[in-house]
């Protein structure tokens, strides 16, 4: 199989998406702000009233890093599934791009890079809100921004794999509710993983990218809770590399006819 080279033209693919994002920035900026606000109020303070502290951490502080991690996941995953699918299938943007000196590989990497960037933007919007609630420690939590990029690249690449696979926009709902939604609950987000049977814990840490993202985010906002931080970071880096390669393969198979 012949792989076209990936050059700095990736930036132009990324730039096209960024340009469109800025055109509608007033709308684009709202979802992460409101999502995190509601999550914080409903879970942190609503539900939190009924929850004892978790391992010496009060519930709003426990849930805050999970809200960031979920924000990172949603920002990039939904961008490279529904967003990329609309560009690829309905708008034929990919077809227009590959008729220029841009290669298919550059289109794919550019889309994933944009997913990662969107995750960083969302993180940057969520952090001030959490800071206002006083539930994250600064300046350590600013490291969530580069973590947003890493997590965003991974979920962006995962999303693009499903985009390469899906026959229609409707079937894209399957990975969303069969994988993303359960993962959102089972990744140590709203309750700690060690309250689950140990086999489930092993499976979660072997397979669920969000579990690692949450555990790293928590290590950054609550420096006292960092048992597996290095393992999680390595897991995310390796997974990102592998899934990106896979997404290029799957997309080539779909687009090169």
């Amino acid at each position, binding site marked *: 199989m012949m792989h076209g080279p990936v050059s700095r033209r990736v930036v132009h693919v990324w730039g096209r998406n960024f340009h469109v994002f800025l055109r509608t920035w007033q709308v684009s900026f709202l979802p992460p702000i409101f999502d995190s606000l509601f999550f914080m109020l409903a879970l942190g303070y609503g539900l939190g009233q009924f929850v004892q502290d978790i391992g010496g951490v009060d519930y709003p502080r426990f849930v805050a890093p999970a809200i960031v991690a979920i924000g990172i996941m949603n920002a990039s995953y939904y961008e490279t599934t529904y967003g990329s699918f609309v560009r690829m299938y309905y708008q034929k943007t990919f*077809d*227009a791009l590959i008729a220029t*000196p841009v290669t298919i590989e550059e289109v794919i990497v550019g889309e994933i890079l944009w997913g990662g960037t969107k995750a960083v933007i969302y993180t940057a919007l969520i952090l001030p809100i959490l800071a206002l609630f006083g539930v994250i420690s600064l300046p350590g939590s600013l490291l969530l921004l580069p973590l947003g990029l890493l997590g965003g690249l991974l979920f962006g690449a995962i999303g693009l794999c499903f985009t390469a696979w899906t026959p229609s926009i409707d079937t894209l709902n399957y990975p969303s509710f069969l994988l993303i939604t359960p993962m959102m609950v089972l990744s140590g987000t709203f309750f700690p993983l060690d309250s689950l049977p140990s086999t489930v814990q092993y499976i979660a840490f072997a397979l669920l990218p969000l579990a690692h993202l949450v555990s790293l985010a928590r290590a950054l906002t609550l420096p006292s809770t960092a048992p597996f931080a290095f393992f999680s970071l390595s897991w995310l880096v390796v997974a990102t590399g592998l899934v990106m390669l896979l997404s290029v393969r799957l997309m080539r198979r779909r687009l090169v*006819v």
Partner: protein
Amino acid sequence: MTSPVILADGLVKRYGNLVAVDSVSFRVDEGEVFGILGPNGAGKTSIIRMISCTSPVTSGRLEVLGLPVDGFPRDIKARIGVVSQENNLDPDLSVYENLTVFARFFEINRAEASRRADELIGFFGLSEKRDTVIESLSGGMKRRLTIARALINRPSLVILDEPTTGLDPQARALIWERLRALRSDGATIILSTHYLEEAERFCDRLVILDRGKILLTGSPGEIISERMSRALIEIMNEPDVRAWLDQEGISYEVYGDLLQITTDTPEDFVRRIVAACTPQRLLVRNSTLEDVFLRQTGRRLIR
């Protein structure tokens, strides 16, 4: 002698078991307007996508601007402009942005992109729509913008896949008029269409494809004159007319309630038939590519 702009030799495109392009050979020289004609499914888009380096060649040789498509796609794509059959303008962007954002993919700097965009917007009569989003454009305007976008990198070869399909006659005329201007600037143009009549007027040379194979090739004039008499006469299919034709030993073809006769001396024929019987309807016209296609395949190209 200059090397050809496009050289196809035994070109084949297969999708699974389906042979869409079946060993096609042709060449296009600099400054030529070259037409790829044929009914739907003949393989026009498949050939155009291989030339545009967006679809791999199954087998055979294909060189564009002197470079083999499988070795130098990036270099080739930098020097061609492609108008694809399906609209792929960016609906998230304005007319102007569609051109400037596209220019970045060719590494054209911002100032130059902006200059070229405004020049092209003027050339294609879109100045009033410069800052509107794509949705509010008519079909003809969208197609003109797509052509404008294909010219942003000042291509040496412009490739258009059915540039006028789906447009009303007025919008089509406008597009041909702009393409004619492009042609007189010396651009090499390759286009596909299933409007034989438009191709006949516009193309220097063309191939007519049918089911992936080249059926006819040459200049429109050559193709017609080599296969048919100059004029074509259509007469209402009536018994007395048929009787007279049979008696005179003039051969004709029957198409429903019409009889067709081809001749190089239409004036003489009309004088004789009018003297002999009174046909209800009689039409004399020049033979066209459509007539050649019909005679060659027994099918009309446009159904």
